[in-house]
């Protein structure tokens, strides 16, 4: 009898000892991604990126806890809370949907946990901004490359058609901000749903405004329908996309119709075509080569690179934070946040990160190139 009471207790004690001891030494990172649901076409490559991520951060072993948020903000928040309260993570990362990522920043601010946002997010209030670091290039940085190219082609009026969600807003706002400085005007603001079966109405509205160029605020394969629609109706001007669109599925859907599509993206899409002395060519080429070895030829995409760069940022910052506190403690999380503002010249797949107290992204012009669809492939625009 005595034996039967003792053994469960012993198991519990043993279990507690087991879970406690490695938690001291290892770094734990909680990642929430929309691997299913409407954002799945981006969520899956984001998740793939973690397969290539280093197994240590700052020299310490790391565990990535990856949960699916089904592309829903409420699930992303639940995951983030679970990471912080139950899993005792040192930092959270996520998500591939803008609304989900924005929702997670609140948890980061409430609990004092550094958050690596894997999508561009709209400006935050200071409390949330304090704990949130953004990996992808800001939409303004990316779209400024588009506006520069438009200037060369003497574009005066721009038609906009984009998603009816936060992503569409972000691209539209960036264009609204950049166009007047370059002497251009955005003349339409048409919106469509990712899975809409027809975009004829929106395309006709854009055509009726007779813009010199069109900007599509979509992402991935759902960015193809407006492009196809415009070409089918005989639109002759250049059609620009954004960095969310650069993947193979876009070309597979648009086929010949999207030939000539122009988009800004990170250097990791075309590392082979970059000059040898390009700042992050080697990191980008190494990542792309390993990614395509693991996930198939032409599977390269910007999204997996964001996951990878987020981990590289943490790697640099963890090395600093370890000098001040032990992982698993609030002090460590606070030190990690401070370190994320101080790391210098972190060379990632997308560019060189130099974040600071006023700039929680830290990328510059080196993090963007313009690519164009040519013979069914994205290639560097020269």
């Amino acid at each position, binding site marked *: 009898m005595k034996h039967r009471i003792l053994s469960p207790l012993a198991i519990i004690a043993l279990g507690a000892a087991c879970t406690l001891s490695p938690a001291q030494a290892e770094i734990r990172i909680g990642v929430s991604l929309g691997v*299913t*649901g*409407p954002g*799945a*076409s981006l*969520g*899956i490559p984001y998740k793939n990126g973690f397969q290539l991520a280093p197994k240590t951060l700052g020299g310490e072993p790391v565990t990535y806890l990856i949960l699916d948020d089904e592309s829903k903000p409420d699930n992303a928040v639940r995951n983030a809370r679970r990471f912080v309260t139950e899993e005792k993570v040192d930092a959270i990362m996520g998500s591939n949907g803008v609304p989900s990522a924005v929702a997670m920043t609140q948890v980061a601010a409430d609990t004092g946990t550094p958050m690596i946002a894997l999508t561009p997010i709209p400006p935050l209030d200071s409390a949330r901004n304090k704990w949130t670091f953004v990996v992808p290039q800001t939409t303004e940085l990316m779209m400024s490359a588009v506006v520069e190219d438009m200037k060369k082609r003497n574009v005066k009026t721009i038609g906009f*058609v984009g998603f*009816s969600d936060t992503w569409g807003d972000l691209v539209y706002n960036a264009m609204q901000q950049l166009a007047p400085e370059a002497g251009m005007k955005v003349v339409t*603001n*048409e*919106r*469509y*749903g*990712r*899975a*809409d*079966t*027809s*975009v*004829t*109405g*929106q395309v*006709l*509205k854009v055509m*009726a405004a007779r813009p010199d160029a069109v900007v599509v605020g979509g992402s*991935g*394969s*759902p960015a*193809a*329908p407006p492009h196809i629609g415009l070409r*089918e*109706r005989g639109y002759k001007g250049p059609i620009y996309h954004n960095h969310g669109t650069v993947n193979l*599925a876009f070309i*597979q*859907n648009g086929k010949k119709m999207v030939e000539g599509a122009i988009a800004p993206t990170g250097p990791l899409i075309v590392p082979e075509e970059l000059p040898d002395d390009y700042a992050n060519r080697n990191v980008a080429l190494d990542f792309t080569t390993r990614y395509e070895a693991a996930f198939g030829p032409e599977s390269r995409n910007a999204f997996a690179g964001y996951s990878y760069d987020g981990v590289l940022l943490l790697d640099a910052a963890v090395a600093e934070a370890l000098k001040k506190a032990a992982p698993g403690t609030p002090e460590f999380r606070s030190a990690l946040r401070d370190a994320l503002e101080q790391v210098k010249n972190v060379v990632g797949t997308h560019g060189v990160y130099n974040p600071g107290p006023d700039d929680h992204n830290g990328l510059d012009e080196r993090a963007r190139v313009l690519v164009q669809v040519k013979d069914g492939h994205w290639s560097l625009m020269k």
Partner: protein
Amino acid sequence: MTSDIALWLVQDGIVNGAIYALVALALLLVFAVTRVIFVPQGEFISYAALSMAMLQLGQVPATIWILVGGGLVAAILEAATAWRQGAVRRLPSILTRYIAIPIAIAAVVGWSASRALPSWVQALLVLALIMPLGPILYRIAYQPLANASVIVLFIVSMAVHYMLTGLGLVFFGAEGLRADPFIDAGFQLGILDISAQSLIVIAVSILMMICLWLFFERSLYGKALRATAINRTGARLVGIRIELSGNLSFLLAAFIGAVSGVLISPITTIYYDSGLMIGLKGFIGAIFGGMVSYPLTALGAVGLGLLESFSSFWASALKESIVFTIIIPILIWRSLTSHQHIEDEEE
């Protein structure tokens, strides 16, 4: 808005409306016969469209695994029932229906994938691939609950919908696919460029409606379905089996869904989860017909296509809100004009 834009929008609205009409008719048919609000009707469309696109890419459509797997589950359920009833002699027919036929279809489709057959042959293969899914779904999910209330059947429908969407993500992946048009031609009609594909959609939709009408008016099976729809108890008393009418209506629904999917695959990009939106819009059409009238349903669905097309021009950001808000005036109009009571619901 100029007249040429209006004409474009009308053309676009009618093509989409024709697809919604097919969905709505299938929903109505299934509801009338089995009282199931068949949410997963849209999944037949997305499965068919994705299978079509995969065949054109020379890949084996993952639907074959769903077909064979589903058939296997249905066969086990059916065999267990037969065993309990001591009717072992039914086994050969069960094995043929749920195992041999699905495997045969899967084998033919798998063999054909790399052969780049003409697109009309591929379309027929897709039909053969999707149609058996209807009766298989009915056997697995609905037949055991044939006498449950409408709300229970609706909840089962939601579950089936989520299961099929999940399987779609696993088997087809998250990216959308688009097939090549059957005929890559078009012609000018005044200022309009009419593509051959959009004419095919409209022609096939009308043909399907005529065939359905003939089926219900002229054939014995069609009359049996109508009898079940009018009065289930009465139909049973004259010897129409519930399983037969259920199986038949699901087979027809899957057939209509597969045809719509094949039709729509060249004109738009279809994702693994596109089915729900198309299904919901068809559902609004069915509500316009009060879940009873076939002509009103078709009319409502085409009207909805037009409304969607024009609202995407005038207020694109609010398009879905406009399209789904229309259900409120429709319901008010229906409740003011209809006097009939729901029969055999509150038994």
